[in-house]
Every structure is written in structure tokens, then in C-alpha cells.
């Protein structure tokens, strides 16, 4: 069976959930091999969890010459690994659809002369190459596609699969990549880590509660409901542009695309650019005081009312039920 490379997305060695989803998908397509780029000891440590989700091999690429630069060195390392595997190459390379993931994939595609598919919401085995499903045009169309040249390089959105445990050997294999000087030209000069909210990641959360201009700047009711539901907090661009919440909260065309089990939109009108980021959610609820707000066209359940009274009352009721 051919290897399927999965680029591990991790924060200081802690593997992120979408990587386990990719391993689950990789298992459908061939033999999962995880590629960990980072400090060698962190890679050794991560191998345990990667193996638990099906990785037979864990390539550890020491990042002494990679950390601190933008995507180019990572793409180089991956290209060298693809070449090393040789003979028809890996059956596919799977990368999480983050901005960085997509850029690594883009450079890798050019380097290896391969076709690229981005933002897949599903990947299944196919004749000759995996068949991907994408959601396009603000979620109004579903498209199935296939790579026809080189190694299929596919970036996959979070929540595209349920991570399934499946014992893999998780054998660590050090891979020494040669990083060119040319790849080390865009430097991270300074980084200020974000404060952790303690809530789930927006793109990974099962429930998202979002607020818009209708909050009038007071996100407390949104956050309280989110916490009662164990949800992530999102926002419309109007709320972000007003400076009420950080840009990382934005859902929509130029923010995050989310596809949770439940999306709650409060004080959000439902502009097409906002819908683009949420309309594939399984269940949608809206609270808006305007009964003609376009968001109501999408909802499974809607409340016409003032979010400042409806949300706190609902939050109390939920907390009471939880006892």
C-alpha cells in the first residue's frame, strides 16, 4: 500500500485535532505517514498520539533551520520527502487548510509538478486519485474534483472527518532536509502570542455562537451563552471592524469558514459574505429584532427579539437544566 503523507499541525509539540482527522482520511487512501516538523524531542513525544490515530511512520524533520521563517523551508522539506519516497511517490499529501497550510501546499505543488486541491470538506478513495469534495461560491455549490498530475496535494478543512483511533506503529524516522538559503528570506521578526480564551477553536468547535453589530459592542451575552454551551465565540465583520472583538473571531469570506453542528447568529443580518463562512453548518439559529433580516432565510429556528433579553434568559435556562 502506498504511503499517504500527513503534515502535522501542532503548537509547541501538541498535535491539533485536525491532524487526527487527516490521519483518519489518510487511512482510507493508503498507509498514513505523519510528517512532524519541529524540535526532534517534541516529534518523538508526538509520535505516540500520531500512532494512536493510525500513523505507521512518523517522519521527524528537525526544524533548527526552519523555525522562524515563513512557509518556504517547510515546502522544501516536504518536497524532498516526496522525492525520497520515490517510485510513484506518496498516494497523496494531506495538509490542514490553514493559511499557512495552503501556502505550503501551493509551493509544494509547483516544486513537485503536482496538482493541488484546496479546502476539501471530504476526501474519498477514487480511481487513480482521491476524490475530493469542496464547497464553493459561499457554500451554494458542492464540487467534486481529482488531481490528475503528479502527487495529489490536498488541503482539508477542519471537521472533514471524525478522528478515529486506529493503532498504527508510529515508528519514528528522522528525516534530514537540506534547506536552501533562498528559502530563508522571509523572517518572523517578532511574535506576540494571543491570550488563550479557554474556549474551543472557532474552526474546530461543535457549537459556535456569533455576535454582530446588533450587540452594540456588548459581547457579554454572547460569551455567556457560548460558555453555557461549551461553544466558541464568533463575530461578523461589522463587530470586528468596530473593534469589539479580535479579527480572529471573524466568520465569513475574509474570516473563518465554520461548519459546526450548531451555529447561533445573534444581531447579525446575514450578508452574503457572512453566509459564506457559516451556511454549511448543520443547524442554524438566529436571534434578530428585525423579522426581515436575511439570516432568517437560513435558519432551522429563529427568534424575533432583542438579543439583550433573549440570550441572558436562554443562558439562565440552560445553566439551570445543567443543574
Amino acid at each position: 500500500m502506498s504511503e499517504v503523507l500527513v503534515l502535522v499541525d501542532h503548537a509547541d509539540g501538541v498535535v491539533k485535532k485536525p491532524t487526527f482527522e487527516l490521519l483518519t482520511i489518510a487511512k482510507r487512501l493508503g498507509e498514513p505517514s505523519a510528517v512532524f516538523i519541529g524540535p526532534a524531542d517534541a516529534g518523538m513525544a508526538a509520535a505516540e498520539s500520531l500512532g494512536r490515530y493510525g500513523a505507521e511512520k512518523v517522519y521527524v524533520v528537525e526544524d533548527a533551520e526552519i523555525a522562524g521563517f515563513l512557509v518556504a523551508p517547510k515546502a522544501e522539506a516536504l518536497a524532498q520527502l516526496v522525492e525520497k519516497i520515490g517510485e510513484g511517490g506518496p498516494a497523496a499529501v494531506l495538509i490542514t487548510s490553514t493559511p499557512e497550510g495552503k501556502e505550503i501546499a501551493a509551493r509544494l505543488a509547483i516544486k513537485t509538478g503536482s496538482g493541488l486541491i484546496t479546502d476539501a470538506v471530504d476526501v474519498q478513495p477514487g480511481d487513480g486519485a482521491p476524490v475530493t469534495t469542496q464547497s464553493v461560491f459561499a457554500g451554494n455549490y458542492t464540487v467534486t474534483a481529482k488531481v490528475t498530475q503528479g502527487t495529489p496535494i490536498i488541503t482539508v478543512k477542519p471537521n472533514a472527518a471524525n478522528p478515529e483511533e486506529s493503532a498504527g506503529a508510529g515508528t519514528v524516522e528522522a528525516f534530514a532536509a537540506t534547506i536552501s538559503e533562498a528559502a530563508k528570506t522571509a523572517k518572523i521578526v517578532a511574535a506576540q502570542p494571543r491570550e488563550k480564551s479557554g474556549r474551543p477553536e472557532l474552526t474546530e468547535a461543535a457549537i459556535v455562537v456569533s455576535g454582530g453589530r446588533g450587540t452594540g459592542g456588548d459581547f457579554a451575552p454572547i460569551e455567556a451563552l457560548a460558555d453555557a454551551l461549551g461553544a466558541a465565540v464568533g463575530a461578523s465583520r461589522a463587530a470586528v471592524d468596530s473593534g469589539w472583538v479580535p479579527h480572529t473571531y471573524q466568520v465569513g469570506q475574509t474570516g473563518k469558514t465554520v461548519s459546526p453542528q450548531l451555529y447561533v447568529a445573534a444581531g447579525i443580518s446575514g450578508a452574503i459574505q457572512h453566509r459564506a463562512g457559516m451556511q454549511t453548518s448543520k443547524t442554524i439559529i438566529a436571534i434578530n429584532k428585525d423579522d426581515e433580516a436575511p439570516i432568517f432565510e437560513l435558519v432551522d429556528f429563529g427568534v424575533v427579539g432583542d438579543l439583550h433579553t433573549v440570550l441572558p434568559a436562554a443562558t439562565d435556562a440552560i445553566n439551570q437544566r445543567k443543574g
Partner: protein
Amino acid sequence: MTSIVVCVKYVPDATAHRGFEADNTVDRLGVDGLLSELDEYAVEQALRLKEKAEDPESVSVTALTVGPEKAVDAVRKALQMGADAGVHVSDEAIAGSDAIATSLVLAAAVKKAAGGDVPDLVMCGMASTDGSMGVLPAMLAERLGVPQVTLASVVETQGDQVRIKRDGDTATEVIGGTMPLVLSVTDQSGEARYPSFKGIMAAKKKPMATYSLADLDVPADQVGLSVAWSVVEGTEARPPRSQGEIVKDEDGSGATALTEFMASKKFI
């Protein structure tokens, strides 16, 4: 001299009906198109760099598009905003190209537009509003052999040094690079200007070049739908969501109904 080439894409209007042709390519002719809103931010940043320069005359801003005949409108809009010159790459053979082939054409065109060499700055939007892959800037950088500093919310230059601010998920970063490089900007970088009446009149006299694939020495058999490295096998319109129950909140009834709905779906 500082040369800036801004890559602008002509896209179907997002508020109009968007769909596919029989061959599964995006319908680019049946709907009204325009300069991608996200590329306006790139034009804006290019113009600000020019205006901030000690000698603005020494900075040239060229707007470049690859696309069908009508795509020239996107370049024209950039000229109206204040770009100095326009380039339109148009060739029947390009129709249906994927991102890989588009980047091949763009890379060749960017160099030709700048007189043969990689310009000091190649500027892009964060993603196109139709395909929205957000991969072209990285592909261009790879093909041109230059660094990429992407997704900037703030852009600063000093001599040949570029510094950007980027709002990542886990951190806010400052990224630095040396020209020449590829730079992409987000919609957080600053509102794009509207063309003034004067700008619209002036645009008519600005130089506009049209290149074919032959002008770029790109073989026609390396682009287009038939050689795309990925194929769309099917497209399906998503069934419209049917509207569910809508209740009006009266004296707290809304919250009760809402909680019951959530409980019935097992969210609580």
C-alpha cells in the same frame, strides 16, 4: 526607481447569480464581473506606498490581470484609482486554467510588465472572491524565486526592506523580507479609495498593454482546461435551506422556545 506590479482579478459579482458552464468551469461571461474587492486593497496599498515615497514619481504602479476580454475592466478600475499603467493578458488558450497554470502565466507577465526582471514588489489580494484559494501569491513567489510575505494587515517599507503585521490565529506577527518579494494584503489593511472624476478621466490616457501567450513565450499547451492538473468531476447546487420555525419573543417566550429547541436537538 521602485517598480510595483499589482495582480488584480476580474471576478463574477458575488451578489449576482454565480454558476458553472457545461464544462464545469466558472461561468465568467454570463454574469457581470468586476475587479475583485479583495484586490482593491492591494491596489490601495500600492498607491499608498507610492504616495508616501520621497519621490512618488520614482515609483511605478502597474496593474496586471490574466483573464477574458472583459477582464480589462478590472485593470481599468485600478487605473482609475491611480495606478500608472495597465497590462491585460488575454489568450483563448488560457480559458479554464487552474491555479498552477494561471501562476505560470502570471509569473511570466509580471516580469514582462516590469521590463524583464522581477519587479521590486509583486502585490496581490488575500484571495480571489470566486475561487478563493488564496494560493496564487505563494505560487508566484515559488515561480519567481523570491520570498513571500503574505496576509498583511499593515505594510511598511524602508528602502528595500519590507515589514508587515499579520494577525495569525495563535499570535500577531511582524514579518520582514528584502525586495524583490511577493506581498499580499488583507481587507484589514485599510479601505480602498473610490476613483475620483479626475481619476476616471486621467485613466483614459494611461498606457495599457495587451499580451498574448506568444508575447510571454508561454507555450499554449501548458495552460488551459485540457492540461489542468486537477479536474472538476461534478458540480451540484446545494439545495436551498428551507426556513424553519420562527417565533416572536413576547415576555420571555423567545428564550423558552429557544431553549426547548436546543434541548430537542440535544445541544443541551
